[in-house]
């Protein structure tokens, strides 16, 4: 039976619901695993899922918020690593001071990057790529290229102390911040403005949205939200390493897209991103439970990211129609062709003159 793919997509119902459908399927898979195989699932596994939520959830939220605002902060993973390093180096005597220092660095980094993007009215990609390199270099420099130990073990033990079997203070901090972000994005003018500048920058400027302030705010929040979990994780590990890979960025991007964030900006919600993070965390935990080799995890994460990107790609509906997979609908066709043009990346920039 022909599917009206484009209509579903246009209404946004598919995008809005899919994160929660995926999360339900993942939870179901985890619940059913002991039934269909000899592997056991215990509360410790759910604790691990929540710990992962506490570690990378906020980074995904940070990246997701910048995408909703029509930008893309490539520096979130480096801010996460730098945040941990700053906290460990400055928090030897007072853990709170260390976290505050990490957040302070985040505010500065976010303000500079957001300020430049706002002032120059340019793509955030090259700026945040330069920012990424600066932050990686800074992390190596302040750590003298080595892992740094953190001697205050008590903080880490407290942060990872189980609460109600599946939570810990660290994961609850993430949950709380997700709730705050969800409320702000749902019920305040700021949330509406963030989506507005992501959906149509020019129109929102004309409509009186303070675009520059919102942009700077989003980048500051993104940097701070990346620095905090980095700091808390390194307290938990009692050490900070300057090493950085693509893993955090891959995870955050996959989680945000699974969570229904649209790469063309303007659409997505913290609740969706949370569902995306949980889905991906459950998937990774399932791979751990069945002791899958490391390459399986790489294959699945990479494949999933590709699949979800293709599924939301603006031209897919058009393509499917051209090759007769879905019913041809004249009006939708016209609308989709327009979407295909307007949603391609470079058209998101405001005209230069």
């Amino acid at each position, binding site marked *: 039976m022909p599917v009206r793919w484009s209509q579903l997509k246009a209404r946004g119902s598919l995008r809005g619901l899919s994160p929660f459908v995926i999360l339900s399927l993942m939870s179901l898979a985890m619940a059913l695993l002991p039934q269909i195989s000899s592997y056991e699932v215990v509360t410790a596994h759910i604790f691990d899922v929540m710990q992962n939520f506490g570690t990378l959830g906020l980074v995904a939220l940070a990246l997701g918020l910048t995408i909703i605002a029509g930008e893309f902060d490539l520096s979130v993973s480096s801010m996460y690593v730098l945040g941990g390093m700053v906290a460990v180096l400055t928090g030897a005597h007072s853990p709170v001071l260390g976290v505050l220092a990490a957040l302070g660095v985040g505010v500065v980094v976010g303000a500079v990057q957001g300020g*430049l993007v706002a*002032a*120059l*009215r*340019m*793509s955030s*990609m*090259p*700026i945040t*790529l*330069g*920012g*990424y*390199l*600066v932050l*990686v*270099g*800074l*992390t*190596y*420099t*302040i750590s*003298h*290229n080595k892992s740094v130990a953190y001697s205050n073990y008590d903080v880490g033990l407290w942060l990872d102390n189980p609460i109600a079997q599946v939570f810990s203070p660290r994961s609850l901090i993430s949950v709380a911040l997700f709730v705050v972000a969800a409320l702000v994005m749902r019920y305040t003018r700021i949330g509406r403005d963030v989506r507005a500048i992501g959906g149509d920058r020019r129109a929102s400027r004309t409509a009186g949205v303070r675009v520059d302030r919102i942009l700077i705010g989003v980048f500051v929040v993104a940097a701070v939200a990346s620095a905090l979990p980095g700091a808390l994780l390194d307290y938990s590990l009692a050490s900070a390493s*300057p090493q950085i890979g*693509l893993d955090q*960025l*891959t995870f955050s*991007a996959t989680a945000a*897209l699974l969570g229904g964030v649209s*790469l063309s900006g303007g659409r997505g919600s913290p609740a969706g991103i949370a569902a995306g993070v949980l889905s991906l965390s459950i998937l990774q935990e399932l791979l751990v439970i069945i002791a899958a*080799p*490391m*390459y*399986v*995890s*790489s*294959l*699945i*994460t*990479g*494949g999933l*990211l*590709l699949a979800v*990107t*293709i599924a939301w*790609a*603006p*031209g*897919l509906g058009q*393509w499917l129609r051209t090759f007769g997979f879905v019913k041809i609908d004249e009006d939708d066709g016209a609308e989709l062709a327009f979407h*295909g*043009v307007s*949603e*391609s*990346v*470079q*058209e998101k920039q405001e005209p*230069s*003159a």
Partner: protein
Amino acid sequence: MPQDPRLGRLEGVVRVQTASVAAVALVVSALLAYGAVTTDGFLTLANFKAILTATSFVGIIAVGMTVIMLSGNLFSLSLGTTAAVTAMFFLYALQFGLGLAIVLTLGLGALIVGLQGIVVGAWGANPIIVTIGAGGLQEGVALWVSGGHSLLPPTGETSYLHLARPVLGIPFGIYVFFVLAVITEAVLRETRFGRETFLMGENRGAARAAALPITLITVGVFAIAGFCTATAGVLIGAATANGSLLLSGTYTYDAIAAALVGGNAVTGGRGSVVRTVIGAISIATVSDMLLLRGYSTGIQILVKGLIVVIVVVLMNLGRIWNR
């Protein structure tokens, strides 16, 4: 002479941009000249060769990165991974003979990255995300096939060593880099495909309206990037004779940095491979100078990032002043 007022404005933009580029060039030259004179061992032939050696692998990948950037597809975040994967494959394929190994490796590179071009071109998927995902897939497959072991050339095989030897005192990779840069620049300037690539980068809507084969061009652009990256892969494999994913190093970001520092527009349509060559050599020169002056790797990466930010900001200032 009657003139379209917009033309005057355009000239203004061009003038200010030229002026800002000239200003950057002047400041950079002054800094480099100061550094050159005050850094011990910088103005020596040996050091000049060291700079060129450091440029070659990154530069070759950056040529491919530039083509993607000019076509309006931003950049790839996994060309470094592809370089490592193709280096591993090259060392494996050496058992079939050097010539065949090179051909197969270049084909594999063009295929891997070209496939990503289909997804980006046909369905309008975001190139950044597609290339991150494809990078994960490549890592997974490479780990799976290699069983997590490093790949070594077949015992007794020495033919590949020619690729790692200097020719006339200059690393072989440098010749490859310059030849590849010249050919790619010629393809971009002189062929229909090249001009269509620029048009697509400048304005995808117009390219679509003009019925250009968007998918085909995008696949071509990505395949060229894959070809360039696999060329680097062959040389990296030959130079290290030990293939693992660790070889990917910082090539991805360094190649993007080279293209950006050269002043190519990240949104496409404006720029050239020559700019990237200049960008790659500039970055290598600054890094070399910092190294000679005793600065750590961290500082070198930091400065690289600062240069990227400063160049990108200056490139856009001209636009702002004309608003």
